[in-house]
């Protein structure tokens, strides 16, 4: 799994842990697994100590932290900066426990040659996993340095403290970290326990420290993979078929080969690309190459009309997500039943995917904004037919990806093209239309709720069925890559498998957090994927929370209760109650009558039922004549556990709300039998400034000492539901089918 061998537990490790160390590996995996990872089927031979966060995968401290003789501190993370501010947060964590100024930390992010393998930067787990690992590693490194100084000074360790990159004695003598490292071995395994600093002593953690990456981004520094310029670099463009699976026929590329600046036309089976010296030359050559390429065959897409409804009748496998009590035959005073749908939706990264690759001396180096450098390396090396060590993948920022977008495929495209021009770095940039058409989408979903209330207005039974593809087809295997699927002997996409796990996939957040005595949640897993799908921010949580929280409002109406009070009635988790109350109070939630055309909506969810808690309330205006709706005001409350950077939490939450609002009001992939028809921003519009709310107020709960909770995806599902609830409030009509385009809203309103 990593470049570092897992050694058997050291004597120190055993002594430090004390007691029993044997914890089932499968339990560890379940707690920390991320979507796309294959579940292990048997425990390993060696029992492992339970280490916090990603330390369990990379237990050696110097995998995470190195200090040189000059005292320069380098921190390594297997996570990547996606624009979510993780670099800054990790620096804050390391700086805090290492007692250093943040500017003294040099952070190295995901690189298969240099950093731990932390899988994907996904699932809102970076702080939970990498942050936890780094925090503990930093604390342990600090204690090791103290112990080293104690040994050198022959004093007790508890007489010393770390401060500003130095170990200090009471009498003022100090030893800089750099002076201690020569005698200090950091190539030791972490221990399960660490002496963590208490929140009351924090200087850096919990502070809204400014993002380390923003100044460069606003002054035009070369920050993104799109900005890379290497000596001898050439520009490439791929030519993709009109639909997936089409094969390339005979090709006369002579007209293209003679165009100005063209270095090569690369054809490998049905993989087609052109390389040129200058970027615009590559684009012009691509356009001509598109014209001469003849394609045949390919996958016929389903007819769009009635497609989502048809999800119920295609082959499926049933997975029981959760079962409690007895849901059939439960006597309820009132029942509610509804079907909700969600279309395919795109990531829509504002900068289409890009990668730079260079084949040099048998090693292919790829610079990519992939979320997973290690898995992408494995897939690319498999595709190229070489050993993984012959491929190096280094993360360089791209634009926001929001999940599995075209990055991994662009990396594979670049790697494949690089084989054709050895020695020269190849910059491969996807076009806007290619990103829109070839990125994997968030899957279309259909969900059905049947719920029953008793006389006292409490939910007594809850049946939830969801129909969905897998929400992760990340590489993984080479067969997940478009380039590999295009080769003369194509790699086949691996069949998707149903997997029920605590953090969920299509079933993410399918189980309400509310106290419901009788409950049955089933995932009707759909293995067949007529459109390419994978992980989009929130995964199943977006559609599942939309359905659950819309239902909660309907049940509240049936019970004659206020929507907020009704949720509190069923919420036993005190932290859930706290965000619900905070959002309602901050918003000024009431049941006062609203003027015509205005509505208010509320929603709550705990992301994955494991990560951050979020509640939000919003105001909407709905135009009766046109069906146009607009959010005016949002107040949200979020509990992310111990706060590393409150501004980061706020930024991510505001962003998640606006993005999810855009999905909810406007977005659906359009297609016909011949292929995808939503290929740019005119055919797939997203929210523009004119439609953005007037205000968004995010309140953060203060939870010192609590574990970090994943935050970046917490807003998606609740936003959709709150909008649906607000439209219901404004018009008296419930909408069940996303997105809530004007046509649907107007049809619900009537004349």
């Amino acid at each position, binding site marked *: 799994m990593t470049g570092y061998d897992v050694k058997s537990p050291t004597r120190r490790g055993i002594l430090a842990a004390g007691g029993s160390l044997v914890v089932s590996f499968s339990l560890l995996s379940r707690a920390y697994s991320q979507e796309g990872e294959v579940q292990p089927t048997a425990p390993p031979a060696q029992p492992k100590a339970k280490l916090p966060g990603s330390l369990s995968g990379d237990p050696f401290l110097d995998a995470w932290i190195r200090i040189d003789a000059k005292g320069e501190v380098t921190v390594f993370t297997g996570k990547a900066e996606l624009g979510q501010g993780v670099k800054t947060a990790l620096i804050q964590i390391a700086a805090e426990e290492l007692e250093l100024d943040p500017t003294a930390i040099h952070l190295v992010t995901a690189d298969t040659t240099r950093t731990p393998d932390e899988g994907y930067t996904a699932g809102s787990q970076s702080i939970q996993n990498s942050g936890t690992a780094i925090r503990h590693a930093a604390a342990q490194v600090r204690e090791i340095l103290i112990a080293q100084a104690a040994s050198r000074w022959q004093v007790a360790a508890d007489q010393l403290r770390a401060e500003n990159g130095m170990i200090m004695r009471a009498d003022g003598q100090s030893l800089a970290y750099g002076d201690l490292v020569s005698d200090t071995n950091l190539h030791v395994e972490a221990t399960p326990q660490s002496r963590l600093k208490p929140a009351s002593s924090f200087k850096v953690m919990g502070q809204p420290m400014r993002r380390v990456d923003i100044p460069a981004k606003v002054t035009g520094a070369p920050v993104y993979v799109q900005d890379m310029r290497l000596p001898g670099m050439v520009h490439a463009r791929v030519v993709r078929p009109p639909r997936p699976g089409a094969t390339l026929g005979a090709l006369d590329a002579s*007209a293209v080969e003679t165009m100005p600046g063209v270095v090569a036309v690369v054809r490998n089976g049905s993989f087609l690309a052109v390389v040129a010296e200058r970027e615009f030359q590559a684009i012009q050559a691509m*356009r*001509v190459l598109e*014209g001469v390429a003849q394609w045949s065959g390919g996958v016929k897409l389903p007819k769009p009309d009635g497609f989502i409804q048809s999800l119920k009748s295609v082959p499926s496998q049933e997975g029981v997500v959760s079962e409690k009590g007895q849901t059939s035959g439960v006597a309820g005073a009132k029942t509610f039943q509804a079907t909700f749908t969600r279309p395919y939706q795109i990531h829509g990264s504002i900068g289409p995917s890009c990668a730079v690759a260079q084949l040099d001396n048998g090693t292919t180096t790829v610079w990519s904004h992939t979320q997973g450098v290690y898995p992408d390396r494995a897939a690319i090396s498999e595709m190229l037919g070489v050993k993984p060590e012959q491929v190096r993948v280094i993360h360089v920022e791209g634009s926001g990806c929001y999940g599995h977008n075209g990055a991994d495929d662009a990396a594979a495209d670049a790697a494949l093209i690089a084989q054709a021009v050895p020695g020269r770095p190849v910059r491969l940039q996807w076009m806007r239309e290619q990103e829109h058409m070839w990125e994997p989408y968030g899957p279309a979903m259909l969900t059905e709720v049947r719920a029953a209330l008793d006389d006292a207005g409490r939910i007594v039974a809850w049946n939830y069925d969801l129909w969905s593809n897998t929400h992760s087809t990340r590489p993984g295997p080479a067969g997940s890559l478009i380039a590999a699927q295009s080769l003369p002997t194509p790699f086949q996409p691996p069949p998707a498998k149903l997997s029920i796990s605590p953090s969920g996939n299509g079933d993410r957040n399918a189980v309400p957090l509310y106290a419901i005595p009788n409950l049955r949640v089933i995932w009707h897993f759909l293995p067949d994927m007529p459109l390419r799908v994978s992980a989009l921010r929130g995964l199943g949580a977006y559609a599942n929370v939309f359905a659950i929280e819309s239902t909660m409002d309907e049940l509240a109406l049936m019970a004659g209760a206020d929507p907020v009070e009704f949720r509190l009635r069923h919420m036993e988790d005190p932290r859930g109650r706290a965000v619900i109350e905070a959002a309602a109070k901050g918003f000024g939630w009431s049941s006062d009558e609203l003027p*015509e*055309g205005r509505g208010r909506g509320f929603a709550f969810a705990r992301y994955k039922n494991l990560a951050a808690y979020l509640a939000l309330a919003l105001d909407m205006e709905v*135009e*009766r*004549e*046109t*069906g*146009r709706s607009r959010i005016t005001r949002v107040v949200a409350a979020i509990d992310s556990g111990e706060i590393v950077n409150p501004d980061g939490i706020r930024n991510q939450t505001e962003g998640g709300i606006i993005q999810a609002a855009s999905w909810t*009001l*406007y977005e659906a992939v*359009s297609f016909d039998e011949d292929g995808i028809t*939503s*290929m*740019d*921003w*005119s*055919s*797939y*519009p997203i*929210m*523009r400034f*004119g*439609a953005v709310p007037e205000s968004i107020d995010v309140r953060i709960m203060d939870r010192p000492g609590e574990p970090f909770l994943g935050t970046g995806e917490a807003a998606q599902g609740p936003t959709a539901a709150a909008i649906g609830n607000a439209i219901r409030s404004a018009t008296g009509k419930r909408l069940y089918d996303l997105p809530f*385009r*004007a*046509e649907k809203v*107007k049809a619900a309103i*009537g*004349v």
Partner: protein
Amino acid sequence: MRPLRLLAVLALVLVLGGAAFLAYAWRSEIDPADPPAPASLDPALAARGSELAAIGNCNVCHTAPNGEPFAGGLGIPTPFGTIYSTNITPDPETGIGRWSEAAFIRSMREGVDREGRHLYPAFPYDHFTLVTDEDNRALYAFLMTRRAVAATPTANELSFPFNVRLLLAGWKALFFKEGAFRPDPGRPAEWNRGRYLAEGLSHCGACHTPRNRFGAEEATQHFSGAEVENWTAYAINAASPAPVPWDAESLAAYLRHGWHERHGVSRGPMAPVTANLGSVPEADARAIAAYVAEIMGQPNQERRARGEAALAATRRDIEAPLAARAGATGNGIGAAIYASACEGCHSGRRPPPFGGLNLHLSTAVNGPNPQNIINVVLFGLPAAKGEPSAMMPAYRSVLNEDQLVALLEHMRERFSDRPAWTDTRERVAATIRGERRITVYRMDGTTQAPPESSMRTTP
């Protein structure tokens, strides 16, 4: 006759004439009525009224940019001054809340408001007079169930004598033929329906027929095309400049969806029209299309051949772009600008509504003047909000007068077999300098969404 007697007779004639005119012109006030309770109005009637209101494009004139629907306040420039649309919401004080059904019907039929004042024909009652009583009742039911908005419209900016409403009676005597539509029994139902709608509520002639110096439509030039607010409304009779001739089928699709593969997208003042027609029964759009297509007439051999040639040229551009480019007429800056800034979208590889029309098929390029192209190139086609729609960026910050003239001349030469325009430079200069003010419309006409009440936007 002695001068004094002459004077006396003259005075008598004037007074008698004035009195006669007054008697002719004066209209009574219809008593104000209580606003009808929305619940008292038949919902089915109101629903029918909403369709008719869409056909009549009421929202387009009676909604100001960023204003409330139907609350008026849109300034309509005319050669006589600016007229502001009235509030036709059911507000009792500032709208038509106190208008009885009879008062409403009279306003449509005779162009007279409840108080008896003549209305300016900027409100096209010369067309709306055709609307039947039954349809007017539906419109009334629709309007009376809208949200009442208290909004006093801006006063008209008309100088003497145009601000004397009574004189409009004279205009009506000369140019207004009052009376509801009477179907021609010798013609099929669809034709009659098409004629009823096109000449009535849709008031196509209000833009597509040129007007005389009194602001009345020239009856002898029915559907010959005109210029309205610096957008050219093309001829929709036999003189239609469309390279591929329209027929009932293509026209119906265009009116309903706002675009057609062989004609382009509806933009400018036509955008709200197709946005509205997208929300009415298809049969109505088809009927209008059939009627107009008949007026255009069957294309003769020469026109058909030209249409085929345009389609063939388009195919060549798509299938052999390099060859087409090499063989394209025109060197120099116009061709270079076209190749670099326009061709990427307008090659025709990607068809409307989301791709640019290949200009061999463009009515604008083949039309009588380049004004519409100037408008679109300078100000772009802003996307509809939140709906898939055609869109195009604006080039006004990068093209100067010389460059735009060169581009237009190149387009005309390469994509049309018509003679060069003679007024290109004048129009370009006037538009860039702001002397010709252009209203820009969002491209809601190409969406499937319910129409926005106002699509006007600042450029």
